[in-house]
Structures are given as C-alpha cells and as structure tokens.
C-alpha cells in the first residue's frame, strides 16, 4: 500500500497538474444514452491522476438531484430517451446540458432509424458541445472547465 501511494504521489508530481484557485465547482451527472462506451471510458479517466478533474472543482455525482450539468454520451436510442428525460427533469435549476462525443452531436451517427431518435439536440437544448470520437480525457477536461471559467452569460431556465 505504501508503494502504491508513493507511486501515485510521484505520478502527480511528474504530471504537474496546475490547480488554479477557482473557488468554484460544478457537479456533473453522466447519462449514457446509447454510446459505444468509448466516450464513457475516456470520461472515467478524467478522474485518474493524469487529469484529476475533482481537483479542478468538477465532480461526477450519483444523482441528477445533485447535478448542475447533464453530460450525455452516445446517440439517443429509443429505449434511453425516456430515462434521459426523467434524469433531466429530476435536476434542480439552473441546469446545463452537455453533449460528449460525435454521436451525441449527430456526427457520423450509425444505427437504424427505428432504434435511434437522433443526436442530443433532437430531445434537449445543448449548452456545451465536446466533439471527438471519442474526445481524449484532456479534451473533455478542458471543455468542462470552460463551464466554470466562462459560464454561459444567462443560464437558461428550462
């Protein structure tokens, strides 16, 4: 255990993440609405030592009730449209919606029209777009940080 912790401390030092004192935070709820799991795998790594989003004020929370941002991966399948909208309805206001990855943005979407509703903006207004197939963890981290550093001037009340 000592070795593991020592290695992690060295790893963090070598990576040298800058931790600006933002004094602000955002809570994120992730919903996989029909992804290939690529965006989800890269999102998972944003919590790993090389990116460490928690230290930058961005945390993934367990319930939409606790979330500021709904972060959606994948094409919206017909079977996930309902649960996605239920999660959105459970969020307190003000709230933001982010599309993570090309499928959620409708870029190069594959699937049968009877099974896929479409990209995220077919069902919800989108405040932040993070393109990539999948975007790398640092791209995801940088994009999410813009929500803290440059929040939308007027956070839409929906």
């Amino acid at each position: 255990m000592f070795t593991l912790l020592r290695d992690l401390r060295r790893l963090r030092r070598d990576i040298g993440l800058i931790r600006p004192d933002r004094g602000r935070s955002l809570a994120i709820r992730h919903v996989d609405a029909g992804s290939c799991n690529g965006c989800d795998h890269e999102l998972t790594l944003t919590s790993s030592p090389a990116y460490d989003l928690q230290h930058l004020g961005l945390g993934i929370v367990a319930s939409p009730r606790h979330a500021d941002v709904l972060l959606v991966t994948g094409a919206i399948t017909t079977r996930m449209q309902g649960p996605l909208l239920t999660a959105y309805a459970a969020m307190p206001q003000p709230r933001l919606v982010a599309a993570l990855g090309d499928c959620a943005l409708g870029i190069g979407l594959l699937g049968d029209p009877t099974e896929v509703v479409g990209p995220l903006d077919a069902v919800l207004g989108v405040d932040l777009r993070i393109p990539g197939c999948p975007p790398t963890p640092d791209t995801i981290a940088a994009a999410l940080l813009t929500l803290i550093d440059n929040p939308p001037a007027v956070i839409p009340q929906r």
Partner: protein
Amino acid sequence: MSIEITETLGPDDLTSLSPTADAAERYRRRVRESLETGWRFAGLHVSPGAGSVRTLLASPFGATHLAGVALAAGCVPSIVDLAPAANWDEREAHDLFGIGFTGHLPLRPLADHDDRVDPIDGAAWTVPVTGTDAYQVAVGPIHAGVIESGHFRFHLVGDRILHLDARLFYKHRGLELAAVGAQLEQGTGYAARACAACAVTNSVAYAHAAEQALGLVPTAELARVRTVLLELERLWNHLNDIAAVCAGVGLAAGNNRFAAFTDRARRVNAAVGGHRFGFGTVRVGGSDLGLGRGQVAAVRADLGELRQEVTTSWRELLFNASFAERLPGVGTLSADQARQLGTVGPAARAAGLAQDVRSISPRLAYTGFEPVVPERALGDVQARFEQRALELWQTFDLLDALLDRPLVPAAGEPGGSARQIGVGRVESPRGATSCVVERDGSRIARMRLRTGSYANWPSVAAAAPGNLLPDFPLINKSFELCYSCADR
C-alpha cells in the same frame, strides 16, 4: 501436444432448406450430435429475408459449422434444451425478427421493452418471485457512476440475492440492420462502433468473416499486425478491469494506479495505430499500418517499462490483506455452470476451463499459444481478478515477440473458395467473439456479431444468487462486460 488446426465451414443446407418436419428434426440432430462430440454453440442468426435461422457451431480445434433450418409457419425448433447458451440468441431473434422458437418456454422478451405480456405463453421479461419477505430492487438503466446503461432486477430476502435478471438492449442502435446493404469493406465501421472496448476484436472478427466469404486469407505480416492490435487492446482492457475490481471494493489507491496504467496503455495504442481505441486500424483485405524501426523500438521499450511498473503495483495489491480478503468466495461461477451456460474468456478460464480462441486462430500470429488458468481456479471474484494478471504477462510476452521488427503495410491473398457466408472467431478481452457475414455480391446481406460480453451476461446473473446485494458491483466488475457490444 500437437493438434491440427482446421478452418472449415461445413456445408450448410443453404440451398436445400425446406420447411419440413424432417428438416426440423435434422437441424436438431445436427446440433445435438455436434455438442455431444465436443463442439460448442457459438451463435445463432436469422438469414437475409428472414426465411431461415442458422446456428454456428465451433469445434475445440477451430473448425466452424453452420446448421440451418427453414421457418415453418413463422417458427423453427428451439435448441435451448440442447444448448442453454442459445437462450439469448433465440430471444433476440424473436424480438427483432418475430421468429417463434418451438419448445423455448417461456420465451421471455429480451430486446423488446414494450412490457406487453405475450398472450400465448404469458412470459414477462423477469421471473415472478413470491414467498415470505421476498422483494425486488430495481437498478438502472442509469447508474450512479460513469457506467453504461442497463437494468438489473434483483429479487431478495434482506440483503441476500435470490435471483437476478439483467435487462439490456437499452443501448440497442440497430447497427447490424443499418449495415445491411453497405459495401463489405464498410462493415468494419459498424463492427468497431458496436463497442469501443472491443473495437479491434470486433473489427478483426468481421474482417475475417468478410475475407473468408471473399476467398481471402491474411499473409503472415497482416496476421502479425492484427495480432499486435488485438493484444494492445487486451492490454488496456485488462489494466482497466483490475482498476475496476479495486473500485468495486473502494480501494482508491489501486483504482487510481491502474487507471493511470490504462491511460498509458491507451497512449501506446495511439502510438501504434493512431487511435486510443484502435478505430480505423482494421480493414477488410489488408492493413495500411506502418511503423518504422525506431518507432517499434520505442513502443517496445515503453511496454517493457510499463510491465515493470505494473508488476510492482500488482504485488502491492496482493499484499494488501484487507483488499485481498474481500475477493474469495464472492460471485462464484462453477466450472459446471460455465460449461452449461457457454461462458467464455477470462471468466471461463478462472473457473478452470482452459479454452481460448487464440490457441486455434490460424488467421492470426498466435502460433504455439496455450491458454492459462489460475492455480486456484474457483470461478470467484478472486480467480477472475488473478486471471487478468496471468493474461497480462502473456500479452506483454506476445507483444515483445511480435514487435521485434517494423510493421509494414500488408494484404490478404487468395485462399479457399469464395462463398456466400463467412465466419470469424476472435478472442476479445472478454472471450470468444463470433462474427457471421452473409453477402450479396459485394454488399452485406446480414452481419451478426456475438461478442464475449453477449455470451457472458447470463453468467453474471448466475453468479449473483446467494451473494449480498452490496457485493454485486464487485461481482459485476470482476466480469467487466460491455453493455454496448451486447446491445449493438
């Protein structure tokens, strides 16, 4: 031991399929006789035009055979009594193509989420559990972490799990239906997008199937390039799966350490194939990948360094008593259960079944490969955890041997006769993955991808009863199956 590796596609009654009672009996007899002589069920798909159903059977030595049967009054005989592994395949064919399976009772909905109870046999998707103090816990489709979408229905008394039904297909995108009509070359795109974690495996399985149908075999160099890509995919997946088990018991240090290794392994993937998940690295009939002497040497050195660090951290996990004691006796899948359910991959090997498609892959560069099983092959979380490490050392060895010279663009060459159907079988990080492609000239008439995850989901459900509900995340992570390549 020397075994002859065969690769034949048996003569299917493609042209002579007629809906007679005799044909139905012949189909069941062929399946039964194959299973009795050590062959295994490897998938079932609906032919183009939905006039017949074909069952893929695989011998322990690499041969494959398709047994077909024509629909009579919308039905074919079920084989689920002979091969319980066909359970999901038949339910999927029923829900997506409307085919009846005579003798499969109750034929529970799988992909169909409409919650209509079938008027004929009245089967709901989950079993009713009754009795004193029995209750249900419904989890998902949305989970509390960054986890794929799927629903679990637990039947419990107190914290003790009596029964688990997994309801997947929330992520069903109809990829195989969407691929119909596309050029054969485009199929790898659909196969890769079924699942990022198994993108290389799925693409290679598809490419093998398409190449077999086109009468092509890979050259030794093409086989080597693909094997490198497959092992690099296994590398990051197994590191990820070790991190997942640490997360499953709340060991943050282990989870973080192995998550950092996972990231590093994905960077190696990007350095070799240009993409962290290998998207676009596999194409039908050849490979464009080139990696010069210096680049190959750098990758090899990086992998050597990674191996040393992983070895040290792995030992640290083993010596952490409070962690190690959380793993034994949890989520046990016995060898008998694994055999019965058709479990594949690390989960089967952890239960003591020494089977691995890599040892019977003439189209890949696995000469002399032998499956490894843990000393303590009890089929529990600990065995599955240890299995990942055993396979990691194999993967590091394979990569070191394969990366001894530059990678150069390579092609397939004529071999075997062109035919209407091709089959590819590849070992993914989760187990045997089969792909069947039926073609209409140069276009896809049907593709079906049966991944290791698809094969193993029923095993997760079988490993849960008797355990405590709070241990389920750990059990689930010890299998670490993909939802996306089951749902497609």
